[in-house]
């Protein structure tokens, strides 16, 4: 690498290549250092790493198919747990629109948000109202089945 002795003075003719090279270099430097800075920012931000834990919610036999009940996590979130034909489904009862509480309407078989008449299907997908416009479903939690017991994965 020491053999070039013409290196120090750059001919103007290579200006375009130089532009490409500089662009490539700057892109790399900016991209990598932005990433490093993001990590540093995340490090400083006062919230410890998100961990989840398993919480016992119910025995399977306590929720026959078609039934549902509300469960409150240790952090205070309310979660609707339903035994649907597609298995056990756990959905947040917080409407993604303006954080009102939705409720299950047996008659129509939908979750209904009273604030702006947002409606969700049993699986949490938006049907009508503001949630449909935003295309925002109800937040879903993971249900873990262990023998005849149901557990929920919630943030610790």
């Amino acid at each position, binding site marked *: *690498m020491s053999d*070039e002795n*013409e*290196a120090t003075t*750059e001919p103007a003719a*290579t200006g375009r*290549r*130089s532009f490409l*090279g*500089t662009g*490539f*270099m700057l*892109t*790399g*430097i900016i*991209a*990598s250092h932005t*990433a*490093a800075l993001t*990590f540093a920012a995340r490090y400083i931000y006062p919230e410890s*790493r*998100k*961990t*989840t*834990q*398993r*919480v*016992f*919610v119910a*025995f399977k036999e306590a929720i026959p198919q078609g039934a549902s009940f509300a*469960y*409150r996590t*240790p952090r205070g979130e309310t979660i609707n747990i339903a035994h649907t034909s597609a298995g056990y489904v756990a959905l947040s009862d917080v409407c993604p629109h303006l954080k009102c509480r939705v409720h299950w309407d047996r008659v129509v078989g939908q979750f209904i948000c009273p604030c702006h008449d947002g409606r969700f299907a049993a699986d949490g997908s938006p049907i009508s109202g503001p949630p449909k416009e935003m295309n925002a479903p109800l937040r879903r939690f993971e249900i873990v089945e262990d*023998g*005849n*017991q149901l*557990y929920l*994965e919630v943030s*610790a």
Partner: protein
Amino acid sequence: MTLEAKRVVVGLLSFAFLASLIVVAWVEGLKTRVNPEPEPVLTDDSRACYSCHEDKTPAVTAQWNDSVHARKGVGCYECHQAKKGEIDAWQHEGKWISALVTPDDCGKCHADITAEFQGSHHAKGGQILGSLDNVLGEIVEGTPAVNAGCKQCHGSTIAFQKDASGEIKRDKAGKPLLDPNTWPNSGIGRINPDGSLGTCSACHSRHSFSVEMARRPDSCGKCHMGPDHPQKEIYEESKHGIAFVTADQQGKMNLTARPWVVGVDYNAAPTCATCHMSATRNQPATHDPGKRISWTLRPVISKKQENWEEKRAAMRDVCSACHTQDWVDGHYHQYDSAVNLYNDKFGGPAQRIMTALKEAGALTATPFDEEIEWTFFYLWHHEGRRARMGASMMAPDYTQWHGFFEVAERFYIELIPQAREAAHGHPEAEKVIDEVMAMDEHKWKNGLDPEQAKKVREFYEKRYGVDDE
């Protein structure tokens, strides 16, 4: 290198740095999974119980905090919940609960284990009514001895205080009052008001429910000790028990492992649970210790259990985690021979003499009213068991000095003279005693010349020699 090339190189290096950062982000992502040490989880139902009992019974909540149950969100209400109308249920701070947690309650989650336990001899420990031991306790000794003694191992029949009209007495809050003669009780064969048998907390002590505690010999030692069945002391004298003490101090027992497979999760020593209950590479753990026991060493004369070959094979499988086939064969030869010796020379003949005396009317029908009945009880119930159990678990001193030596002394020095005295004037009974004493095993009592001594030894060699079986 041209300046241009340098720029490209620096650019490439930047992207290499970016790539390393992507790896960093990925590793960081791996760390945001399920909490390895989950915190205790209080369900809504249990939170109210906890907040009050944390103050009223702090040790209970603290023990629970350290338990695996706490990590799984199985708290106060999950176990203590009851339904309105259940005999032991009452409404406490708005919830129907019961102080008694029975195998039925535990079985809601641990169904297989509970079923297995319910089929075990352990679960039937409370059904001792009518046994000779029960006569001894209830009548010869007295009820308080039974309540604080016998039943704390065997299990009480849980009962309630009743008023004159037979109604269950309740306190102001409606809590049914348990009969203090039957509660507290953690006997393994407890008979519960819901009809279930036993209590899981006999071994899995509340409220830590520690599997480690249950696997330690001390847990079994609550009951399996003392003059009539010193299994724990026998274990402690054996090489197994000696190895355990050191292995435990060196932290080699891995007592919290799940599963806890001998030869896989630990190798240094076995505990009671290892041989009688825990998993091997070939069989799962069982909550019925009887599944691996081939002899019953409890009665006057030992018998092989039903399906004893199968049970012995299961135990031999445990042995083979550490021992060779020859070694195990040798142990069972010594063990079987010792039991047969006891049966044939002492237990059987003594039983025969006692039966003859009773049949001849030389003894009353009442148990324990005559000295020879105590002598006989000592012989089989205490010393005879020590000899047999000592041999079963390789404790030389319990086999010999605490065992056969005392059996022999009890037999020759007390039982036979007392039997002869009682049989006086009852020729049928005297005949039986003479027959017993004429057995080859007992002939030495008539005096031994060297020739005869040789014959006796030859007799034992033939009787209990290697070719025997």
